[in-house]
């Protein structure tokens, strides 16, 4: 039996993250290829949440529902994972590519003397991984010169592991014995209710310079609402003050990988493309039929977005209505 693959399941504020299911599906494949067990360390969840990890592919789950792990404390979370790692001696540690996962990965790599690769998009059983460099303009094949690999895995690339009711596996409590921390959690302020996070959105509708004003962004929101999509924006729109920074997609904003990305009035500068060219399908709506976004697009629609969007929304509603009626 070779060394296990360790998945880090972070249940911040008591909530399971959908990315954990993606890590379990990647981890399961790696574990099967190396004939090794898939172990999950669950930070911030109890035996019931641990059982779900087993049903989604883990052979063994070490859980701790210590209150101090409800919010991200990179020192304490790292201690919990290191405690599990000391017990399991894993060949690879898989974390989500979000703020929490990335923060932890840094500390784990140093403490484990491990090779670290952030935002990996492919993992080969032999050990190599692929990740973007120069903001996705190049793909780097990374090799490891260390026995342990710490990897943060890009969201939305791997299918989430399905739940198989009754799948068997071990569930053990990790007797978490935290050392000191110098980080004190004060408060958490959630984003506006009902907003879909860009990082885990299957569909995104983004507006750019072509939107032309703060009030006019309502058209983007309307289309997003009709498509069940998150709202994104280009740097030009954010810098103009039309929409807050957290909506920014691109080099200086978020990197996203939705199934569908609808770019409205975004010309497609390389900095924006860097953040969204991983989308499965790109729809561009632009008055300039020759702009880079229109050339990159899976589907390009030349025209005025303010004329097109209400018509698209009406068309979508009409078909939804028809689907319900049928």
């Amino acid at each position, binding site marked *: 039996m070779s060394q296990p693959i360790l998945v880090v399941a972070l249940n911040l504020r008591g909530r399971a993250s959908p990315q954990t299911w993606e890590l379990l599906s990647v981890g399961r494949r790696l574990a099967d290829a190396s004939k090794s067990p898939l172990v999950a360390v669950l930070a911030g969840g109890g035996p019931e949440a641990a059982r779900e990890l087993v049903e989604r592919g883990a052979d063994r789950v070490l859980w701790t529902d210590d209150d101090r792990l409800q919010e991200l404390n990179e020192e304490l979370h790292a201690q919990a994972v290191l405690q599990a790692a000391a017990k399991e001696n894993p060949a690879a540690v898989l974390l989500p590519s979000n703020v929490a996962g990335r923060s932890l990965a840094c500390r784990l790599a140093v403490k484990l003397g491990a090779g*670290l690769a952030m935002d990996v998009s492919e993992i080969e059983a032999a050990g190599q991984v692929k990740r973007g460099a*120069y903001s996705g303009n190049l793909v780097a094949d990374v*090799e490891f010169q260390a026995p342990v690999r710490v990897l943060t895995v890009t969201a939305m690339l791997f299918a989430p592991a399905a739940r198989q009711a009754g799948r068997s596996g071990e569930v053990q409590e990790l007797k978490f014995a935290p050392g000191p921390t110098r980080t004190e959690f004060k408060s958490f302020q959630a984003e506006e209710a009902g907003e879909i996070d860009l990082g885990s959105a299957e569909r995104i509708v983004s507006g750019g310079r072509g939107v032309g004003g703060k009030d006019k962004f309502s058209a983007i929101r309307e289309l997003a609402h009709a498509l069940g999509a998150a709202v994104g924006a280009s740097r030009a729109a954010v810098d103009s003050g039309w929409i807050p920074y957290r909506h920014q997609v691109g080099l200086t904003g978020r990197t996203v990988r939705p199934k569908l990305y609808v770019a409205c009035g975004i010309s497609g500068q390389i900095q924006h493309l860097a953040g969204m060219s991983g989308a499965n399908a790109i729809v561009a709506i632009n008055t300039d039929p020759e702009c880079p976004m229109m050339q990159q697009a899976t589907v390009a629609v030349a025209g005025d977005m303010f004329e097109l969007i209400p018509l698209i929304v009406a068309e979508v509603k009409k078909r939804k209505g028809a689907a319900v009626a049928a």
Partner: protein
Amino acid sequence: MGLNIVVCVKNVPSTLTVDVGPDGQPKTAGLVCAMNAFDEYAVEEAVRIKERVPGSTVTALTLGPEADQAVLRDALSRGCDAAAHVCGPEFAGSDVFATSKALAAAIRKLSAQKPVHLALFGKNSNDGNSGAVGGMVAAWLDWPGVLSVKKVESVDESSAVLWRMMEDGVDVVKVSLPAAVGTVKEINEPRIPSLKGKMAAKKAVIPKWTASDLGLKPEEVGLAGSKTKVARCTHPPARGAGTRVEGASSAEKAAKLVDILVERKLI
């Protein structure tokens, strides 16, 4: 009194369009380089903290070849007081593990002269894109490391209250110092270098530190001290030619677009 602040900066190619050489590595020779864009925010925040807390100083730190001294002079022109350059052939090929180890050793060396309270970092570099060095420096020094910081609410010699941008909201945390802080773009609006700053930057004497100056063996840094290696780079596959939606009217285009979205199960 005051804070002793270090800000780490990186000299990177100013372009994202980089070719791959026959050795499979990015062809960066001859490309125009400048301070990594995200590092400008870290430098600005360091200078703003200096202005908030009287008696503070900011030292800019980089690791890289001789030519990267330019990025330290740029940092000086933006308000940093001093700079140090980790430089030598032994550092070539450093990954985030070896880089962070060397930078941590340089911060220890600075701390030996006068204890460092705060080390600031940009979100990530535009060439390597990892965003790992700040968090790893924290781990080497056994300091708390807070990444994704969008606001320094308050700071004094013993602690800092920081706003951390999470995917679903904002965490407010209080860390005791020393600590490492990774910033995001939202934290400030960097100022442009002043003429006075540029003059001072030109005259500044910047010490160069080799591995042995940092108490590190040559095999602990560079490719030998690295845990990962880029075997080769390739260009991502180009997207196939797309469909252009044609139509006599906007209504016709809208209907055709929705047809395609439904047909491809995108909505």
